[in-house]
Each structure stands twice: as structure tokens, then as C-alpha cells.
């Protein structure tokens, strides 16, 4: 059997020697932080225009994570490209000839890429939180307040899980274009729109991004958001299940189909 540390090392070399890794991860960080900062600054100046109800449930932590709606898309691209370029370049055949054990190959690849996505996700999450709070002025919260640290760490986990889920989907579909064509509109449009349609909401709240993002809320049901029947960790758990199913599906496809 192939040596797992050797395969992990090889996958690390693969991931650090392509430029898409840098630009997707840098975009994820920059976009999230910049948009989070902009919205935090905006809310600070328009706080008095908010309805009393919204002012009451104002969640400064969640506001500073607003940028993730866009930033997560860069994470999706990262996750898809890590797996998808193996197929689009034809490298998959060379890779599997070198490491014929499918599980060792794909899970080593996904482990390395997820670890990197988690690290960048954590950095993004902390950065966007502190910058957002600095810009919120008197409406800010602190990392020491109840549940805030959980939300900030959760934001990092959310970014990592988005990437992980995308890798699973790309392994199933074996194509970057197809995976992006499905995941980008899903996360950017379908999920966001359905989550605000009254009837569809009951289904949409179980989508990976809708469920997972609950972890970033400190005030329950903040600012008129969906009253979900699960808590923050429950929501993240739902997202983990989505990622696990995608990974399992991807592994089975890799195992059964011809390369």
C-alpha cells in the first residue's frame, strides 16, 4: 500500500505549485473581509434607521461576517479546482497510476486541501470579525462576550466545510466546469432566494450554507433571520452531513468509474 505521509506530501506539492490556489484563497480572504468591513461601516452609519425590532436583535458578530456570502464563492472555486483540474488536465490518470489506492489518493488530497482551506478560513474569520467590530463603533461586541468566540471559530469552520463540500461535489461530477456551474448559482442565488420565500424556507434552511451559517450568529434569530429548529452546532452538524455525503458519493464514483 502506498505510504500515506508520502501521498500527503505529494498532494501538498501539487496544491502549492499551482497559481489557482493562491488566487482563490486570497480572494476568499480579501472579498470576505472587505465586504464585511463595508457592511459594518454602513450599518454603523445607518443604525438609527433600523426598525426597533431589528435594533433589539442587532448581531454585531453576524454583521461582520456578511462578506462570507461572496467570500464563500472563492472557497467553492478553490475546492472545485483542487479536484477538478485533475480531470480537466488528464493528470488524474498519471496520479492514479502513481497511487492506485483510490481512498488513499482522494482522502489525502482532500485532507491537505481542507486543512489549507480551514487555516485560511480561520484567518479570514478572525480578521473580518476584528475589522468589522472596529468599524461598528459603539455597536460593537468583543471576542470575550458570550458565544462570540464560538461564532468566530465557527466562521472559520464554515469556510473549510464549504471547500470540503465543493471537493466532494467535484469528485462526483469529475469536471470543474460542471461543478462550478452547479455550485456557484446554488450558493449565490438559489439558496439565498429560496431562504427568503415563505414556503421554500422550511426546505432551504437545511441547505448546507443556510444551516452552516447559523454558527456565526450570536443573537438567536437576529434581525429577522430564519427561526431554525436547530441550534448553531446543530446547523453546523447538518453542513457536516452534507459534506460527508458529498465525499462518500465522490469516493464511490472514483472507485467505480474508469479514470
Amino acid at each position, binding site marked *: 500500500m502506498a505510504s500515506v505521509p508520502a501521498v500527503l506530501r505529494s498532494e501538498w506539492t501539487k496544491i502549492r505549485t499551482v497559481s489557482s490556489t493562491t488566487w482563490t484563497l486570497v480572494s476568499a480572504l480579501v472579498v470576505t473581509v472587505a465586504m464585511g468591513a463595508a457592511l459594518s461601516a454602513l450599518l454603523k452609519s445607518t443604525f438609527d434607521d433600523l426598525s426597533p425590532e431589528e435594533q433589539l436583535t442587532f448581531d454585531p458578530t453576524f454583521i461582520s461576517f456578511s462578506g462570507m456570502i461572496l467570500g464563500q464563492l472563492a472557497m467553492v472555486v478553490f475546492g472545485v479546482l483542487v479536484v477538478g483540474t485533475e480531470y480537466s488536465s488528464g493528470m488524474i*490518470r498519471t496520479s492514479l*497510476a502513481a497511487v492506485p489506492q483510490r481512498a488513499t489518493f482522494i482522502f489525502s488530497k482532500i485532507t491537505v486541501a481542507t486543512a489549507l482551506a480551514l487555516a485560511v478560513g480561520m484567518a479570514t474569520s478572525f480578521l473580518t470579525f476584528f475589522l468589522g467590530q472596529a468599524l461598528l463603533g459603539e455597536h460593537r461586541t468583543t471576542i470575550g462576550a458570550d458565544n462570540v468566540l464560538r461564532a468566530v471559530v465557527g466562521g472559520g469552520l464554515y469556510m473549510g466545510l464549504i471547500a470540503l463540500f465543493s471537493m466532494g461535489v467535484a469528485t462526483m461530477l469529475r469536471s470543474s466546469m460542471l461543478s462550478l456551474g452547479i455550485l456557484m448559482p446554488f450558493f449565490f442565488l438559489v439558496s439565498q432566494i429560496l431562504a427568503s420565500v415563505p414556503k421554500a424556507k422550511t426546505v432551504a434552511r437545511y441547505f448546507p450554507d443556510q444551516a452552516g451559517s447559523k454558527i456565526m450568529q450570536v443573537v438567536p434569530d437576529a434581525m429577522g433571520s430564519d427561526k431554525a429548529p436547530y441550534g448553531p452546532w446543530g446547523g453546523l452538524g447538518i453542513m457536516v452531513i452534507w459534506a460527508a455525503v458529498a465525499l462518500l458519493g465522490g469516493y464511490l464514483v472514483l472507485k467505480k468509474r*474508469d479514470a
Partner: protein
Amino acid sequence: MIELEGLTKRFGSTTAVDDLSFQVRPGVVTGFLGPNGAGKSTTMRMMLDLDNPTSGTVRIDGKHYRELEEPLKYIGALLDAKAMHGGRSAYNNLLCLAQSNRIPASRVAEALDVVGLTAVARKKTKSFSLGMGQRLGIASALLGDPEILMFDEPVNGLDPEGIHWIRNLMKTLACQGRTIFVSSHLMSEMALTAEHLIVIGQGRLLADTSMADFIHENSRSYVRLRSPQQERLRDVLHESGFTAVESGNGTLEIDGATTEAIGELAASHQLVLHELSAQRASLEEAFMQMTAGAVEYHAHSTGEAAPPPATPPGPQWGQSYQSSKGA
């Protein structure tokens, strides 16, 4: 030693590889020959465990490919020249392969040197020409210094210099006692490099023979005749025990005869001959005859009812073999 046993691959209703059994013996260059679409690449992919066989097995030194520990140290393969990530440099493409099989990084530079890519080692491979890509693929096959090497159509799309280089490389590798399994659809190419020959057509085994035997059995020599008095000529030939076969355009072909015997025979019966020549069928023709019933994609000329008989594209095909045999 690679052993294939009853290897079969079906895609829906088409059978790409049909109950294929043969062995690739160590220490020689084995040519794997077949027309386009005969199932060569599919067979090779199954040998590397990339495609799952519908039935049958492949064993490498008695093991399944998936059971090999660090397979690049056993068997190196060039399947398709562009099977690398274009955004990565040649060096890094090879480095990640080397690392996965615990091959020291120093081998990467050595392999690049063998194929002559040292100067472009740091260049992204998407800028590589087909020939450079082919060389990089060969470098990846050589990385683990394996005993067995597999090349799928290595000369495809190469310039004459590249073809010459690959031929010499394969000979050098075989001289080092390695097992070489190389596919091609060109008989002339195989005649130059292979000692053993496996021919397939429509996925079925057509021949498994040494190159010497193949040449012996298949390089047919015959006499070609043309005469305005063909009817009489045929009678005369028949009476003298020669079997003449008409080959179109009013020419006759007689197997195993000499021009002297035929010429004297015609003279003694006062027959006019317009042509009398000794012919030797090329291996290419022999190969085409063998696979005639097994060609996947026939070219049909438009407007004509019947496809024209397959003819080799010019005499140089056979001649290149002839001259090489003399050399």
C-alpha cells in the same frame, strides 16, 4: 512479467477488448500492434488499473496493480502526453509524482536530463509542444527506475528526430534488461524496435509471435505478370503447376515462383509479356491483411459502391523495413 487472462471490456453493447490473454515477457521489447480503435489503449489502461475490466485479470509479477507498493518503482507508463497539469512546471509535475512513491527528488532532475528537458524544467507545461509533452511523459515513466515500461503510441505526432530518439531510447532501455511494452498502429515502426509481437484487432488477439517468426511467415514473395494473352498464359501456368491469382488491372500474381522460371516458360510457349517482376509484400501489407476484417473505422470513398482495396501508401513502407534489415 505481465500476464493478461481473459481480459474483457465492454462499453454498453460494444466490446472494446474481447477475452484477451497474453504475457509480456521480461527483457525484451514487445510490440502491441493493432489498427486504430482495436482496443490497445483500453487494454493498457486496464493493465494500469485505470479502467475496470468487465471480466478477466491483469497481473504484474503475480500481483494486481492495486496491490503494488509504490507502483512507479515497478512499472512506468506513458499513456497520453498531456496527462500533466499545464499550470505546473515540468519539475513540479514530476516532483509530486516522485513524492507520492517516495522516490528521491534527485531522480526528478535525472529523469528530466535523460529526456533532454533540463533547460525547460521550470517552465509551465502548458507551453510545451506535443514532442516536449511526450518527453515529459517518458520522464515520468522513468522516474522510479522501473523494470517494466509501457508506452502507448510514443511516436505519435513526433517529428523525425523525436521518433529516432524514442526508438534509440527503447533499445537502450531494453539493453538494460527492462521489459518494454509499446503500442503502435504502424507495423514499420514495430519492425524496427520490437522483438516480440502481439497483434490485436477489434479487441481480439490475432497473433502472439516473435518478430522473426512473423517476418518469416508473413513476408510473402511472389512474381507479378502482365500479358495481352492472359487466357493462354493462365492455361500454360496451370499445366506447369503454378497457381496464378488475378489481382486486378490484368495482372497475375504467382506465389513462390522465380522470374527466371516464369520468363522461360512464357518464352517456350511464345507468349508476350508486358511485365515480369519479382515482388515482396511488406510487413505492413501482411499486417493489414491480418487485421483487414478487424478494422474499426474503414474509410469509404464517396460515390462508389465498394470500398477500394486497402493499399499501402507508397512503396517506402516496405522498403524502410527492408533497408533496416540489411543494416
